């Protein structure tokens, strides 16, 4: 399975470098948070319990530990159009 994942990561590498475009005013970045089950994921739960709000465009992927993070996840996410990644643990 990992080989399969890597093949996808590398598939678009030969595309030409695009020029930066103007950001539309209603633009919202897509953000993925990789959160450790034991701390940051628990903190995200607590923010819900305390009804603390944060932007809805942050989506959380649970990790058993942030040490589990792999470069391939970051590359894959950026390749798929994610604008920012937050690693918390």
């Amino acid at each position, binding site marked *: *399975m990992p080989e399969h994942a890597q093949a*996808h990561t590398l598939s678009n590498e030969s595309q030409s470098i695009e020029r930066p475009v103007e950001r539309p005013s209603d633009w919202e970045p897509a953000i993925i948070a990789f959160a450790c089950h034991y701390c940051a994921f628990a903190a995200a739960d607590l923010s819900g319990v305390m009804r603390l709000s944060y932007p*809805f465009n942050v*989506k959380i*992927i649970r990790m058993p*530990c942030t040490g589990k993070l792999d470069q391939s*996840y970051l590359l894959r996410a950026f390749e798929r159009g994610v604008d920012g990644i937050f690693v918390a643990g």
Partner: protein
Amino acid sequence: MSNTENKKRGSVVIVGGGIGGMQSALDLADSGFKVHIIQKESTIGGTMVMLDKTFPTGDCSMCMISPKMVEVARHPGIKIHTLSQVTSVKGAAGDFTVAIRQKPRYVDPEKCTGCGVCEEKCPKKTASEFEQNLSVRKAIYSEFSQAVPNTRVIDPEICTYLTKGKCRVCEKVCTANAINFEDTEKEYELKTGAIILAPGLQRHNPWRHQELGYGRWENVVTSLQFERILSASGPFSGEIKRPSDQKHPEKIAWLQCVGSRDPHNANPWCSSVCCMYATKQAVIAKEHDNRISPSIFYMDMRAFGKDFDKYVDRAKNEYNVNYHRAMISDVREDPKTGDLVLRYSGMDGKQTYENFDMVVLSIGLEPHDDAWTFAETIGIDLNAYGFAGTTPFRPVESSKAGIYVTGTFQSPKDIPETVMQGSAVAGSAMSLLADVRGTEVEHVELPPEKDISSDQPRVGVIVCHCGINISQTVDVKKIANDVKNLPHVVHSEDMMYACAQDSQETIKNLIKDKNLNRLVVASCTPRTHEPLFQETIRQAGLNKYLFELADIREQCSWCHMGDQENATRKAADIVRMNVAKVSLFEPLTTDSVPVTPAALIIGGGISGMTTALSLGDQGYDVHLVEKNANIGGLLNNVYRTIEAGDVQHFLKSRINEVKKHHKITIHTDASVEKTEGYVGNFTTRLTDGSTFDHGAVIVATGGMEYTPSEYLYGESQWVVTQRELEKQLEEKGPEPGASYVMIQCVGSREEPLNYCSRICCQDAIKNAIAIKEKGLGTHVTILYRDMRTYGLREDYYKKARDLGVLFMRYEPDNKPQVEATGWGVAVTAYDPMLNRPVVIHANFLVLSTGLRPHPSTEEIGKMYKLTRNPDGFFLEAHVKLRPVDFPTEGFYLSGLAHAPKNIDETISQALSAAGRAGVLLSHERLGVSGIISKHNRDLCMSCLACFRVCPFDSPFIDEDGKVSHSEIKCTGCGICSGICPAKAFQVNNFRDDQIIAMIDALTENIA
């Protein structure tokens, strides 16, 4: 009599659900006993839940205790009885009948989902006890967000309906029908084999000390109020403000010993924790707001615990905390500013006036007001102050057999010592009830697991409304409908409460009817609800790991309220990525390995012997290995405890018990040559050639007394150590008319070994009392830095002063000078009170030498890869909550090998190690978790990257010289898989392809 002995019961009642009671409950339940926790409050948690952070590591208190509370709540062997009190105890050890009275909660915890709408709508407010009156709570409330059980309670004293017959708003808004105003008080009985008392302590009420202005000046707060002020979930969300005008205070003063060490106005004992918590609060306050200048006013800085002195040094040097050795006689308020004026004498004797923005009173600990009636109900004795009456040699036994005491109820103590004693009482109860272990736990029969290996994924999705908690923000029906179009989804529906009992039946039927082989529930957090649903699908014949929770409540509806469109979109994303993930799940088999029910104990001192006896009584074989020719260790040279207990008599009886015990094999003149294997399955060969199998290792290698080179020791015959003096006093008594001078902290609390040896202050006082009590016209002077007679030992400090022992302080940069004279020594010391040097002619100079780790600590550490702190003592797995465990599974720690400590503390810790090891050894087989890292040997290049980073030593080099992986040690953290360049490690249910599938599903709609 023989009848009652035959009728032992395999259950334990624990009174008190603080951190100590919880530890006992988990240890006992994990080793096959049924446990009942009786808790007066509406939630378990005790005092620790109120604290912001803990010393000396600065760990967040709630983050540590909250997972433990959840573990207690969902343990099948533990039943929590909240709002309950014991009304009578009948019977004897092995078979007690405990009568319980339970107050009405008015909320059905089975139906309540913990959504909190009732609390929001309730019109009645009162001061919050949990927030120490700094904010308000409602009449229907939970003490704090993480309360366990996770439900609400109605306060009948203030509820408008229960007091005036009108309102019932909570009932109207509760969609789960959980409110029950008909609820009544219940009385019932529990049959149990042993009772553990862990009721904790209450905080001293500083109201009595009018001169300090508490309750009069708004900006004078208690230390517990300051904890809440510091807490991110507290009344000010972690911003440091003072109550009168919400201004950010810059100068904050802590006043120590409020209610402690004060026999005239409050309590005579030392509360043991205040010096350290004040230091911690000062440090944390400074971390919150760098402008804050903290000052601590104290008598003696009692940083006696492991690494405490280093923490205080850091507070002084890195955080610029000002320490003033001065007691504050009164606090006045400047009415214009709300600032507070403190008056104190400086070290030069001059009166000083200083303004502060805020004053924190370091309030002490004291027994609950109802301690005496509590003791009478249970039928046990208390000491004169209302603490449980225990002896130094039996620190966790009450005056009644089969009833054990633990935590601050026994004496004031900090969190790790409370946790330690929690395991110690659990170990003692395990010994008492060893033959009825497992008789009261229920065994559930499960259907065989269905083989799904050749089936395509058939995913079922349940989307939960959670009453209106999710559905008022997220369009639940739309999600349930849209999800039908996702690959592999064959069924989806919405449910009002997915976690309700009837929903579990519905889910089981769905799995059968629709032939589902994977399930996603979109509801709340996996941290609390995953085990429930896993159990449900297992009952339906599915492997329990074919399940995933999509958290759309805590992480969606609750934090995006009022934004229905975006919240629904986000919830759809969350569900989609979990469906993608679960589709790639495979059934996981959980291996198990047998456990050898035997223990190796390294070190035959009092610690090793105590652990050996407890484990032997629990029914396990014990191999006690001692380097020397005789067991007994350092205690061979000790005669009395400070309480005048006869150490030699105790030691002899213990040695006899150990020698006679049929489960204990003693190996003297031997040490460990080699140990192989892993948790539950070790084989050890000793230097004397004997070889045996065992399941656990207890390291009790002990310590050494420091042999001084200072102060003419070894040069003058008049210079002796406390231990040598103790022997002299025991054999010959004090020399009539002699002058004794004692110097404290010889070889302790300074570089290179900058730690407190903990025992020396009491040793000095013990010997000083023994000298002075005989009369004989003797003089005793003790030169000290801080007198650290913590806890109830403070009584003996007072006794020594009453007997005429002189105490004189010295500073480490101006140590006493010693010169030999013809008949003794002349000691020149600088007296800070007189502000000049004083010469004392002494017949005997007695050096209070500290403790060092035993030299074998280093080799044992290397042999087993166990880490030590810079001072050479072993490091426990977690300073607060795992004080006798090593990070390596199957290894436990006790006694001086851990840190310097007194006899009673060593015995407590040794029993604790026996309790923890007993939990492990009670299992016939040890289950390996399903969520672990799997190693693919075909991909592995043996580069050793995993070997270096694994915190649990699970990768190892096998007989082929390649990397293999011990799954039994693996916790599934996946650090190995993150670092492995060949991707030879994959964590079950967190495999790379599964995470990538989640990323892909999540990014499906990104343009």
